[in-house]
């Protein structure tokens, strides 16, 4: 049928089918800002204005929109200028990946048009249909308030960095922090940190323009004509052998170009976790197997001319299964008699596959029995942490194609392009040199894309058909058939002496790695590392069994074993303090590991090549200041006020405050490596090529800031390209909180080499010594008052004399992993008649060394807090008795919306980390680590009840209250 839409003021005639969504038709017409988030419309990534009103274009048929006026973000500005709403989003730091930013901007436009002076509640309601996993909604909401103020002609609130007086330096402060703007990034400066021009400032993101305008930038925004659509057939059974696959009807369907399964694809062993060579064992996967091990496991894949034909072909594949008994619980799976999940003869590297035991990780620094014998009290408790999913709003998507040189090019929303290239090569039977992986902008990853997950499928299909092939997971497939967090059963046993000092800590874990090993070894190693590093103990032991079960596969998820460990640890420490009659923070303070203390379990639980003779030591720690800042921000004393905890006017409500401490790591020492390459252009600008993958975290901006600081220009003179296995140096990719520290140091080193070359030419041009030259503001300055621009230096070196390209590259791997610290506080209300918990406030004060960009840093914290909130409060993957996920959709799987958020606050506490670029440590994952235990401790403060397991859903809390 033919429809007429008025899009951004222009009448457009489009042909479509009755079943086509408005989203599909708009994208087909080139409006790439209208994005896919889910097949049931809750994400709002496809939100557009129809007749001035915000709707989800994925839930409207194009036919319904016939004759109506459509507005997309493409209509809000022209090249070179920005709408005030777009400017406000940039200035406020409201953009992380930018995937849903166009939707938010349209929501703002509609709201302000109807109401030029909206309240915060009005804005949150306007955002209620746009789900975000990245920002905590705080900055986007304030961006709208800012835009409305500017459009009214009023003054907007300040976004400048707000420096807080330190509370633990000995000097008194009468600073009124309550008067500070909500969105001013709060930084407690350290006197050790030198002034810098670009680093440490809230520079605008270098990719902001394309994100705020919805310019084509994501994988799905560049799809060549003739690209085939791939669909995958997934297993309906949790454990089964594939006895037969009859693909004849599917293959015969007109428009079907290939049907692949174990019968026609080479059986090559691998592990899918995106990690350095050699990938940790076991190699227990093949592209298509004759066995399925969870509901959602891969059975076959189809490439066809259209999505409809591909789906029809999937339905025509006739599979005969021999259904086997299944096991889902990690403790049951390792018992005698449990169904054996991996019994294939060619499987490599599980510890004891016959008992579903993938790994048995053991580490100790002495004999814990001695430590417990020396203890005045021994405490032991067990908890279980559950399965949640990363839910990036952009699901996995990859497009494979032969280029003109007949090399296979895969464009993929991946955090690990270099690992993907190396790992997919043997599966496809191609050498690494014949493969190119391109990482465009990513709409969120959080670890789920630290995986070679679907690139082999599109590769196989392109090889089979000779055509470009695109595979995008549906939201349901993203829940069930990608990766999740590892559930664990954790037992902590701690001995303390009469004064409350720890004499031994023993951590025992049974972890659930689902049907395949992937990250099963290293996540659990981090669990032990993080569980036993926060506190000094003369003797420590870690014993962890990692079990196969038939649940959808856990992999990498931001935090990577630390959220599990710190939930168990920080609830354990809280309870010990209560048993000893000690203050919750005071007990921890007596034992926590700070600057000068060793990270004594790290050598045994590190993955990389480290010098075993060197004990890693903590070299920077802002924990005391972080605690002091958090105590003030949350008004901690209320915790001891019974009148506040039991409000007289609300007899069914109890209120409480809770605390948890987090120590995390910064990159993987001796393993994570990144390279950077910098070259000058004729106008004195630079190209910075990095393998580091910005998934919305702002790493492109951070790296630009570091290079700009060293060579003395602004960030707009650094053009960043990341990342592409043909064009950029190697980088392990975005994980382990490594980019700022590792890729940043590589960038700094490359920039220092370039700086030296610039100075060499300046010496010749100015006739002075190198020592008297400084670079800043785009020039080389000598102490005698002369200067020459970098443009002049570039033209001179490229064209005129002693011609050479000023350029350098560098790589970096670190022998250490300096820990960031955080003090997490939570305020909750509990309805004791129903068990409903309402989270009122979260405050996290973080020591990440020197934040290279305070605006993107607080954005990372604010976004991470919301995911951590979901982990503790409301997210869970739920199953029926047959192992089928029953809530594989947004809504039933509950993530927080803008209009129900608690207050969230991030405070950055500076320290100077000597080993980090300009003093930086990591911040990416630590926000995930301490919200759940802080909530649990707050519930305990409110009700007296100490709950063991997460999430704190109403029935669990109610039952705990009944049982108390």
């Amino acid at each position, binding site marked *: *049928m033919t429809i007429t839409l008025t899009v951004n003021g222009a009448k457009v005639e489009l042909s479509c*089918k*009755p*079943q086509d*969504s408005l989203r599909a038709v708009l994208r087909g017409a080139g409006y790439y800002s209208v994005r896919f988030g889910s*097949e*049931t*419309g*809750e994400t*709002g990534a496809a*939100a557009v204005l129809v007749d001035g*009103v*915000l*709707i*989800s274009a*994925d*839930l*409207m*048929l194009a*036919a*319904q929109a*016939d004759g109506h006026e459509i507005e997309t973000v493409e209509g809000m500005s022209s090249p070179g200028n920005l709408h005030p709403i777009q400017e406000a989003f940039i200035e406020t730091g409201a953009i992380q990946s930018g995937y849903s930013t166009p939707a938010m901007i349209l*929501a703002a436009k509609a709201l302000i048009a109807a109401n030029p002076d909206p309240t915060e509640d009005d804005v949150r*309601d*306007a*955002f*209620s*249909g*746009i789900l975000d996993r990245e920002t905590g909604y705080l900055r986007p909401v304030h961006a709208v308030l800012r835009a409305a103020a500017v459009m009214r002609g009023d003054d907007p609130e300040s976004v400048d960095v707000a420096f807080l007086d330190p509370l633990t330096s000995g000097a008194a402060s009468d600073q009124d922090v309550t008067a500070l703007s909500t969105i001013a990034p709060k930084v407690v400066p350290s006197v050790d940190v030198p002034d810098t021009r670009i680093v440490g400032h809230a520079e605008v993101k270098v990719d902001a323009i394309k994100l705020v305008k919805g310019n084509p930038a994501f994988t799905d925004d560049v799809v060549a004509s003739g690209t085939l659509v791939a669909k995958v057939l997934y297993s309906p059974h949790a454990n089964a052998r594939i006895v037969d696959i009859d693909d004849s009807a599917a293959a015969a369907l007109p428009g079907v170009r290939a049907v692949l399964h174990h019968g026609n694809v080479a059986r090559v062993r691998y592990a899918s976790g995106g990690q350095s060579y050699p990938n940790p064992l076991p190699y227990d996967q093949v592209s298509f197997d004759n066995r399925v091990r969870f509901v959602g496991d891969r059975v076959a894949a189809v490439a066809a001319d259209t999505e409809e034909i591909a*789906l029809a072909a999937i339905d025509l594949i006739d599979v005969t299964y021999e259904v086997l008994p299944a096991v889902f619980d990690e403790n049951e799976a390792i018992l005698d008699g449990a169904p054996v999940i991996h019994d294939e003869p060619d499987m490599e590297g599980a510890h004891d596959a016959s008992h579903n035991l993938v790994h048995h990780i053991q580490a100790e620094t002495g004999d814990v029995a001695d430590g417990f014998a020396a203890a005045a009290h021994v405490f032991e408790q067990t908890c279980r942490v559950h399965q949640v999913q990363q839910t990036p709003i952009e699901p996995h998507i990859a497009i494979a194609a032969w280029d003109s040189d007949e090399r296979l090019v895969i464009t993929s929303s991946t955090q690990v392009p270099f690992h993907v290239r190396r790992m997919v090569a043997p599966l496809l039977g191609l050498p690494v040199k014949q493969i190119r992986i391109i990482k465009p902008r990513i709409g969120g990853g959080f670890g789920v894309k630290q995986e070679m997950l679907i690139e082999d499928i599109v590769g196989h299909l392109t090889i089979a058909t000779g055509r470009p092939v695109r595979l995008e997971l549906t939201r349901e497939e993203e829940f069930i058939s990608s990766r999740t967090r590892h559930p664990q059963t954790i037992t902590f046993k701690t001995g303390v002496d009469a004064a409350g000092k720890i004499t031994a800590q023993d951590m025992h874990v049974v972890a659930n790695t689902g049907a395949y090993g992937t990250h099963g070894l290293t996540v659990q190693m981090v669990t032990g590392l993080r569980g036993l590093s926060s506190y000094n103990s003369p003797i420590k032991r870690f014993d962890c069994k990692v079990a196969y079960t038939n649940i959808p596969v856990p992999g990498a998820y931001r935090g990577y074993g630390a959220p599990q460990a710190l939930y168990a640890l920080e609830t354990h420490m809280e309870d010990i303090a209560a048993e000893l009659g000690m203050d919750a923070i005071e007990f921890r303070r007596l034992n926590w590991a700070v600057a000068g203390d060793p990270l004594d379990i790290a050598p045994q639980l590190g993955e990389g090549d480290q010098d075993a003779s060197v004990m890693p030591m903590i070299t920077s720690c802002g924990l005391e200041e972080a605690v002091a800042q958090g105590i003030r921000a949350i008004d901690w004393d209320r915790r001891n006020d019974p009148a506040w905890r039991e409000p007289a006017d609300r007899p069914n409500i109890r209120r409480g405050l809770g605390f948890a401490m987090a120590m995390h790591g910064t990159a993987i020492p001796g393993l994570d490596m990144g390279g950077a390459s910098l070259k000058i252009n004729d106008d004195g600008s630079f190209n910075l090529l990095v393998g580091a993958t910005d998934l919305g975290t702002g790493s492109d901006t951070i790296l630009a800031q570091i290079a700009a600081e060293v060579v003395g220009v602004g960030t707009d003179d650094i053009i960043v390209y990341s990342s592409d296995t043909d064009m950029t140096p190697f980088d392990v990719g975005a994980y382990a909180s490594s980019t700022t520290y590792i890729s940043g140091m590589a960038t700094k080193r490359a920039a220092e080499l370039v700086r030296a070359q610039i100075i060499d030419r300046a010496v010749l041009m100015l006739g002075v010594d190198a020592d008297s030259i400084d670079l800043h503001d785009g020039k080389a300055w000598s102490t005698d008052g002369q200067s020459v621009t970098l443009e002049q230096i570039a033209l001179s070196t490229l064209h005129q004399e002693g011609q050479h390209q000023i350029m350098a590259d560098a790589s970096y791997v670190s022998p250490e992993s300096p820990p960031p610290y955080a003090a997490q506080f939570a305020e909750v209300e509990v*309805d004791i*008649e*129903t*068990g*409903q918990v*309402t989270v009122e406030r979260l405050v996290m004060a973080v020591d990440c060394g020197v934040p290279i960009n305070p605006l993107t840093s607080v954005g990372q914290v604010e976004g991470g807090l919301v995911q951590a909130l979901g982990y503790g*409060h*409301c997210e*869970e993957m*739920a199953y029926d008795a047959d192992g089928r996920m*029953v*809530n594989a959709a947004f*809504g039933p799987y*509950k993530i*927080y*919306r803008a*209009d*129900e958020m608690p207050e969230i606050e991030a405070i950055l506490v500076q320290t100077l980390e000597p080993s980090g670029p300009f003093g930086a440590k990591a911040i990416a994952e630590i926000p995930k680590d301490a919200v759940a235990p802080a909530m649990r401790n707050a519930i305990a403060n409110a009700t007296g009840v100490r709950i063991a397991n997460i999430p704190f*859903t*109403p*029935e669990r809390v*109610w*039952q705990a209250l009944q049982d108390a």
Partner: protein
Amino acid sequence: MITQYHRPFTLDDAVAILARPDAIVLAGGTSINADPDRAPKTAVDVQALDLAGIELEGGMVRIGATSRLQDLVDSALVPVVLRDLARREAPNTIRNMATLGGTIGASDPESELLAGLLAFDTRVTLARSGSSTEHALADVLADRSILNGAIITAVTVPSGGEAAVDRVSRTPMDRPIVAAVAHRSGDTVRLAMTGVSAGPTVVDPDNVADLDPPADFRGTADYRRNLAEVLAQRVLADVTGGEAS
């Protein structure tokens, strides 16, 4: 999957197309377009039928069936509790598309808004070829076949009385595990709930303890029964001025 699309301009034309065996009413589309079922259907888009509008007539509020849920939220004529339930029913993007008639037709088992309408003893007006009939909402939800071949044209609720609502959910704007809505008009009190039965249902205030709720991962039957008693008591106390029944 919609394989044929029609946008009639008169009710008679709409009802005529609706007589086809695979024909369905397409209002906002938020339910139908999210349905993964690929069986072919003929859509009768009612947007051109002029069925919107909210009016006060003799103590009753008449809400046109194609009124968006956001229209209810914005209307000062709609009772406050129902406006709040319309706001809570869906996020704003969906509220801006979903219609009241469509909400009744979709009959979401967890719909708080439908529970609220049940408590208000709502009437539903249906149009068929040449005729228009009125039904209790409770009857329509109990027997969906009443809607076969018909188009909902309007919904009527009393504008007066006292109402109260309470719920338990995982987060403040989540779908409720159990919700209770009470409405009192004079001495008549009606109580309706979600989460205690197959769908939103009228509940006898004296028989709350006898409910047999279905269980799911958000709540066992025992827990839901407990919530039903607590929430029913709260909303009944609210509408009777503190005297719980």
